[in-house]
């Protein structure tokens, strides 16, 4: 799947609201929400927080974010077998992740990377991009 690149301007436009939603979901101060910091490692987010976050983003922005959409988009054109093997992200999968999660510093893509640990890479900017994609999809469907 190819997509039009998301500009920094688009990210900046939604970031304040996304940051506030993240702060509400995690019970932290909005000042503690840094665009490129891992939500799990930096703000102690857990899997239930990601569910909460997606739910709040849907309500806050009036968009639909299908469950599993982030990982599905991250996989892009690769099949599941091309993307991961026995729970470990393949080299092709890693390359795809690096190009998709451009907000994640390269040193954080440790190998071997378990597919289950992909959410550890997610940052507030990851969710800004999720919102922008959902807004684009809504506009395209209108």
């Amino acid at each position, binding site marked *: 799947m190819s997509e039009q690149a998301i500009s920094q301007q688009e990210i900046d436009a939604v970031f304040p609201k996304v940051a506030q939603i993240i702060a*509400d979901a995690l*019970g932290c101060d909005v000042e503690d929400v840094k665009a490129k910091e891992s939500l799990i490692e930096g703000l102690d987010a*857990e*899997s*239930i*927080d990601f*569910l*909460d976050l997606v*739910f709040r983003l849907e*309500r806050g922005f009036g968009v639909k974010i299908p*469950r*599993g959409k982030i990982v599905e988009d991250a996989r892009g054109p690769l099949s599941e077998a091309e993307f991961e093997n026995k729970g470990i992200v393949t080299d092709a999968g890693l390359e795809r992740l690096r190009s998709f999660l451009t907000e994640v510093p390269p040193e954080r893509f440790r190998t071997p990377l378990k597919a289950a640990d992909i959410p550890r890479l997610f940052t507030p900017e990851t969710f800004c991009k999720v919102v922008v994609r959902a807004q684009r999809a809504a506009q395209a469907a209108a």
Partner: protein
Amino acid sequence: MNERFAAFSFVDRISRRTLQHIEGQYTVPAHATRFPASLMAEAVGQLAAWSAMSSHDFSLRPVAGLAARTRYLQAACPGQTLTLEAEIVRCDAEAIAYGGRASIGGRCALELDDCLGPMLPMEEFDEAQAVRRDFEMLCGPGAAAGRFGGVPVPDLEPTEHLPGRRLVATLRVPGRDEAPFFGDHFPRRAVYPGTLLLDALGRLAVTVADEARAERDAGEWLPRTVTDVKIRTFTPPGARLELSAELIDVDTHCARLKLAARGDGRSVASAKIEVGAAPEVTT
């Protein structure tokens, strides 16, 4: 006594079901020793759970996760019948999103808005075939009445108390053999129900609110609205949790408080609560 589908099951019958809507009923047994208001929310949640489980052919089941808002409008007394309804907003392999209500005698007693329950493998919690049979019974003749015996008052020991501002207490979760509900919640994995945890937190909140309000003799205050509930982890039998209720603000009508439960140094659950004039009790 077999506790499964008895000691903590709050749907007696499912009367109508589509993919987006489910209705049923539950009668609080006349002999039930204690039926806290939070169990009305449990009943609506369980009704939604039946819908989710049947949609996934009983291979998955939801567990407590998030509840954006729960409004308590009326208490439920032993012998009363709750009419239960749930709207299923979304249900997939990751989570069920739903809202719902419980009514008594045609009057709304509880409303649940924007709830989300993560879906987990059924085999961790119960035997799929047995759950399927229970569901068929609920959709057919209904389950036997009077299965629930009541739940104990939470065992809370205060450890820090700033009257009218903050109360911290240790909750001693009953052991597996001390509480029949563990045999039903769940048969293969005993988990302290999130709704009982919220009941315990609500008791702390009422104590702090009572201390904080100006006119303490102007009628009883009870939980009215609970928001932003998040259950983060499972609590096993015998656990010790640190519960806290901290005042946010208070006026003549109600008090708002922040609630938290922690165990082993990590957050177990969090919520906010509004405590105010007691809901009307119908007899």
